[in-house]
């Protein structure tokens, strides 16, 4: 993920028409002065440094520090700064697609939150990085609002009848992250240890943290599902 901006090194992968179109649009935009190559580079540096581990850190710190948790739930955007995320970056006005309103949704013994965007794929990139491919599929968008318990079960998450499943259809300017409950078996753990079990899927609400599953055990995203369009 480190060489995604301009002047990528020569590589063997087949050339796709999407790659051709993107580069053509970018070069024309730069030639016309619509934005600069430096803008693109700066945005790339910011985007490539986004990772859900910031979200994991916020949850772990909330489990250990009730005052931090209170601040995070009250004002997610402002409190993000305490873990190094400024929602106004990289442009000074936030990102065009995700803007600057961030809310953290707290799970309780009687409430489980899960996030979907049925209309597009709104996702809190500044704190979770780029969205997973499945989150963007029409399939997830179609089904999560109406059959949440079935879809959660497909992710391996089965919730009892007395737990309210609350689906958040992220359809306007707000961006959301789930704060799961601290699991049993983590007594006395450090913030780093706790952060390691808060996976990306926990922060979307399709998984729950477990003391025996760390993010490093979750399979890494392979690059490219099918290589884009084949020529």
């Amino acid at each position, binding site marked *: 993920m480190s060489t995604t901006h301009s002047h990528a090194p020569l590589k063997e992968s087949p050339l796709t028409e999407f790659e*051709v179109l*993107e580069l053509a649009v970018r070069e*024309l935009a730069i030639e016309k002065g619509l934005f600069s190559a430096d*803008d693109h580079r700066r945005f790339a540096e910011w985007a490539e440094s986004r990772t859900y581990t910031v979200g994991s850190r916020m949850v772990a710190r909330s489990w250990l520090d009730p005052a931090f948790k209170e601040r995070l739930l009250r004002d997610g955007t402002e409190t993000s700064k305490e873990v190094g995320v400024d929602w106004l970056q990289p442009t000074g006005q936030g990102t065009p697609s995700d803007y600057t309103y961030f809310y953290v949704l707290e799970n309780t013994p009687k409430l489980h939150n899960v996030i979907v965007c049925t209309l597009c794929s709104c996702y809190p990139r500044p704190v979770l990085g780029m969205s*997973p491919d499945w989150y963007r599929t029409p399939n997830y968008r179609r089904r999560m*609002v109406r059959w949440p318990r*079935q879809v959660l079960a497909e992710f391996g998450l089965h919730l009892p009848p007395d737990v309210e499943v609350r689906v958040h259809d992220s359809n306007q300017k707000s961006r959301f992250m789930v704060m799961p409950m601290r699991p049993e078996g983590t007594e006395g753990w450090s913030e780093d240890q706790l952060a390691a079990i808060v996976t990306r899927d926990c922060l979307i609400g399709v998984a729950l943290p477990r003391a025996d599953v760390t993010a490093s055990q979750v399979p890494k995203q392979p690059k490219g599902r099918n290589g884009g369009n084949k020529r």
Partner: protein
Amino acid sequence: MASTPTQYDSFQRQAANLTPADRLPLDSPYEISNELYGLLRKVLHDLGGQPDTPVPFTEKGEEDWEMNTYLTCECLGWRGVWNSEERRRRENDLGATQYFGLPYYARWITTAAKALVDRGLITTDELGRKMDEVRARLEGQRS
């Protein structure tokens, strides 16, 4: 627009049936029912509640062109050429075949190109020539 849950359910089932994988035969019919017009004019992205079968939720990292598409579209927003809601509207305006047929970020970059043309910032022939030039250059680099 259907009003009761049952009517809406029926509506969404039919809307889902319009996707390329499983579609109604439509060949510029001389006349269509109001019901079908309601389905056809429904904004495409509003698909919450359409029945679909379980599929594996696959993991996949961004390819270079996908990340670059995100960056190019965001830079156009940053510098005031368009806004992200316009991009989403333009994705709907692609029509069902392209909306459902294109990969996620291919929808983005296609709409970006169209937005620049619509604004008179580039011409279609300029875009075509640039694509040919870029393709030849990249092919040359990789051969």
